[in-house]
């Protein structure tokens, strides 16, 4: 279980990115975090594993307050938190297998990771994870030889190799096409369900969030302005999160874009004929 208490972050520039956020994510819950750009979604999940240092507040994973740990202890605690990234963040020039095994770095001594001599159990579980995400035959490929969807699946396998107690997922589908996005979201939710793994998913595709999340938290200017099941995410709720003007403009923009796309498709067809 993850409990955030009064979590705040003010960047050195003086911008308050998070103000007094308190949340509880119980065992097995998949929580979607939505909000406009700059609302503090990325900062929030990075404060949990302290890739960003919170200015105030507590981050309790089980009994441990992650916000107060020293360097060595923080490294040990980071093993409990798997993270999946927006642009996959795989090490491009390493093989798929090395990327998955890098999820074990917190558990093995330096010489083992340096010589790529991982314990047999780690290698076995890496293969099992690759099989689970459907990339068994890609183990020896370099990560930069994979497609976007495949890379994100390697990213998922790497996070799971940590045997985490919590999954932080930062815009997992932002650079994927709609179909692959749904496949990736389905894979993440399935895996969380299999393992009873709680997850916080930053996502700015509202329909996708509504389809896959059990609970949605809306963030605006660093504050929680909505917290409830997807069914309660009404137009009024979206207005509180995104602001009235933006919300309408976004819809109008969408309609315009759809129109333009349809138009260009018609023209392409005319040319093809």
């Amino acid at each position, binding site marked *: 279980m993850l409990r955030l208490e009064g979590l705040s972050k003010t960047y050195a520039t003086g911008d308050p990115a998070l103000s007094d956020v308190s949340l509880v994510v119980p065992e097995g819950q998949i929580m979607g975090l939505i909000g406009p750009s700059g609302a503090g979604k990325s900062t929030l999940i990075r404060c949990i*594993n302290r*890739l960003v240092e919170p200015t105030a507040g507590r981050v309790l994973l089980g009994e441990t307050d992650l916000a107060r740990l020293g360097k060595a202890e923080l*490294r*040990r*605690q*980071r*093993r409990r*938190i798997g*993270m999946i*990234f927006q*642009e996959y*963040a*795989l*090490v*491009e*020039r*390493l093989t798929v297998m*090395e990327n998955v095994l*890098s*999820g*074990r*770095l*917190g*558990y093995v001594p*330096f010489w083992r*990771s*340096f010589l790529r001599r991982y314990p047999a159990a780690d290698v076995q579980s890496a293969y099992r994870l690759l099989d689970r995400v459907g990339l068994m035959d890609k183990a020896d490929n370099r990560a930069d030889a994979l497609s976007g969807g495949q890379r994100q699946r390697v*990213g998922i396998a*790497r996070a799971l190799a*940590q045997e985490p107690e919590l999954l932080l997922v930062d815009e997992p589908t932002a650079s994927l096409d709609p179909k692959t996005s749904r496949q990736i979201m389905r894979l993440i939710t399935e895996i969380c369900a299999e393992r009873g793994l709680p997850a916080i998913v930053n996502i700015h595709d509202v329909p996708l969030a509504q389809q896959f999340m059990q609970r949605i938290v809306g963030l605006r200017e660093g504050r929680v302005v909505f917290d409830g099941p997807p069914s309660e995410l009404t137009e009024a709720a979206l207005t509180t999160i995104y602001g009235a003007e933006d919300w309408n403009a976004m819809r109008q923009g969408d309609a315009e874009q759809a129109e333009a796309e349809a138009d260009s498709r018609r023209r392409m067809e005319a040319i093809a004929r």
Partner: protein
Amino acid sequence: MTASAYPTTWRRPPQIIKSARWRYAVQFGIAIYLALAIGTIEVDWARVAAGLERGQRFVMGFLQPDFVSRWGDISRGLIESLTMTLTSTVVGVIISVPVGIGAARNLVPRAVYLVCRGIIAVSRALQEIIIAIFLVAMFGFGPFAGFLTLSFATIGFLAKLLADDIEEIEPGQVEAVRATGASWWQVVNYAVQPQVMPRLIGLSLYRLDINFRESAVIGIVGAGGIGATLNTAIDRYEYDSAGAILLLIIGIVMIAEYGSSYLRKFLQ
């Protein structure tokens, strides 16, 4: 507004010095300085004519290079130079890697960064010839001084370029490896090294061929190698042997140049 109402000419507005008066003043100043500077050059035309004659003998030596009569000296010089080149590059690379990592702002604390950047600055500020003169004075004539000179110069060159390269790596990959609970060494090994390795190999090969060229130059101030042989040949007015040495240097540099650029392309 009809089409004829728009202007038909356009001049590029001045970009650096906006005021026309200043622009002309600066141009005039530069012209005067140039004229005065040229005026101070003293040319002794008789000496130039003599030099041309000497240059002609040099060119003749080039056209009839004599590899044979001094072959013992030449081959010894070449082997010395090649040994110096390889050993100094290897030692230089081994030392520059930690210095380069230490000089990357995104990896180390500020104090380490400043120390390593200091080492690089010192190495780069001192030109090879100056170090060679100094080290020859310290350790005597011969290739050992040359080896030290080239190793020292390699550190400044490689460590700086490596550090700059590390500072430009993809931060997302580092973040991801850090998030798994990896230690600093593991982050360097897993997230940094794969990103900079091809460039490090390329730069090392490039430095290898620079070091060979430099070994010929520092030999002239006494640091051993083919440069020393060349210097001796010129001092003895043996332009045919000197021509042979220059041809060999040019040949080896070209082989190294093409070889290393081919290898670098292959590694990318």
